[in-house]
């Protein structure tokens, strides 16, 4: 098997290397790729959309239909993970663990027994992840708001600098993941419950498609942001600029929610009780 694979791979390598001989040289400014479509984008993007970051302009306007499906792919992956892994189980684990917050001591309560009364000083913890690291926890607690603000900046400033909905969304999602890793999944879930999370991921896509639907309703082609001009009382270029912003927000919401949705399902194998 391994030898066969090796032969196959080498053959494939040979074929591709053979084909590569015909390619334009690396960095050739006169290659077809650099002379056919891209000059239009580079020269017209600002004129059309008032967005200096050409990548964002192309991504969210010229090829926004692509990007809509890119968001949909993420959403689909989130739904897929949910469908595959999620299960509601009502069986009790062999024992419950509680940490006494002031002292850090962990106590174990066997199955069938319960703690009597209210114990504000005891917090339930996961069996798989009993240790508690105050340094990590505190550092994360400080870091997470900054990460989230940065993420929002990335989303909003995507017109002018690298970044945009995806990157911002991923970072937002990562901040939630960080919360889940540094504390536990339960804490993160308290921040963003499961159904809220799922609804957000669908909502993100809906925002994107909704912008398109509005343009359709206004009688223009799907995702033609110029149609928004009349609605918002701005000229077409600014309308495009704003349209890009709207869809970027949608992308960010969808990606953020979906990343966390995937994480929570994978990390807890669908039970959503204990994370890493």
């Amino acid at each position: 098997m391994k030898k066969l694979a090796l032969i196959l791979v080498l053959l494939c390598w040979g074929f591709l290397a053979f084909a590569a001989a015909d390619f334009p040289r690396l960095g050739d400014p006169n290659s077809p790729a650099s002379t056919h479509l891209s000059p239009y984008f580079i020269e017209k993007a600002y004129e059309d959309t008032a967005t200096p970051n050409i990548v964002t302009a192309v991504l969210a306007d010229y090829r926004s239909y692509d990007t809509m499906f890119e968001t949909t792919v993420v959403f689909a992956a989130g739904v897929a993970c949910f469908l595959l892994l999620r299960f509601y189980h009502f069986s009790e684990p062999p024992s419950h663990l509680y940490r006494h917050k002031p002292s850090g001591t962990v106590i174990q309560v066997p199955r069938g027994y319960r703690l009597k009364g209210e114990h504000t000083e005891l917090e339930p913890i996961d069996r798989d992840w009993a240790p508690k690291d105050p340094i990590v926890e505190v550092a994360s607690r400080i870091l997470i708001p900054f990460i989230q603000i940065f993420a929002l900046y990335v989303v909003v400033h995507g017109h002018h600098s690298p970044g945009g909905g995806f990157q911002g969304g991923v970072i937002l999602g990562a901040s939630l993941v960080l919360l889940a890793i540094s504390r536990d999944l339960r804490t993160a879930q308290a921040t963003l419950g499961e159904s809220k999370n799922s609804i957000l991921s669908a909502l993100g896509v809906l925002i994107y498609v909704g912008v398109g639907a509005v343009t359709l309703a206004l009688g223009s082609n799907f995702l033609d942001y110029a149609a928004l001009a009349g609605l918002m009382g701005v000229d077409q270029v600014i309308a495009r600029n704003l349209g890009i912003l709207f869809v970027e927000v949608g992308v960010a919401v969808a990606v953020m929610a979906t990343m966390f949705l995937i994480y929570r399902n994978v990390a807890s194998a669908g039970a959503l009780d204990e994370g890493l």
Partner: protein
Amino acid sequence: MDDLLSKIAGGYNYIAYITIMMIGLYAVIAKRNLVKKIIGMSIFQTAIILFYISIGAKKGATIPILMHDHGPEAAEHAIKAADYINPLPHVLMLTAIVVAVATLGVALSLAVKVYQRYGTLEEPEIQDQINKS
């Protein structure tokens, strides 16, 4: 000979991406561990991204974000296509990266599911269990 050398110098990126891709492909075919296969798959996908970015590269050009942008005079500067790297492959590859992570997520959840069912990630061991039942 000179011709060949210059070809290699101008095409080393292509050779590199082919090599990385084949590393991934080899892992998918030859490795028996499911997570290893998934890693191979991801390597394969990213190699293609490398290829696309190589297409977009342009000598003597800068990143595709317009300069002089914060001001009313921005539009008046003539924008020359030769000054900026081709943005289109970047756009495409943003999509491809996201697709790759989505695929990875689904693949990993499947791996978790397979592990729940068989208690192992090694293909031969799974095959043994299937044959036994």
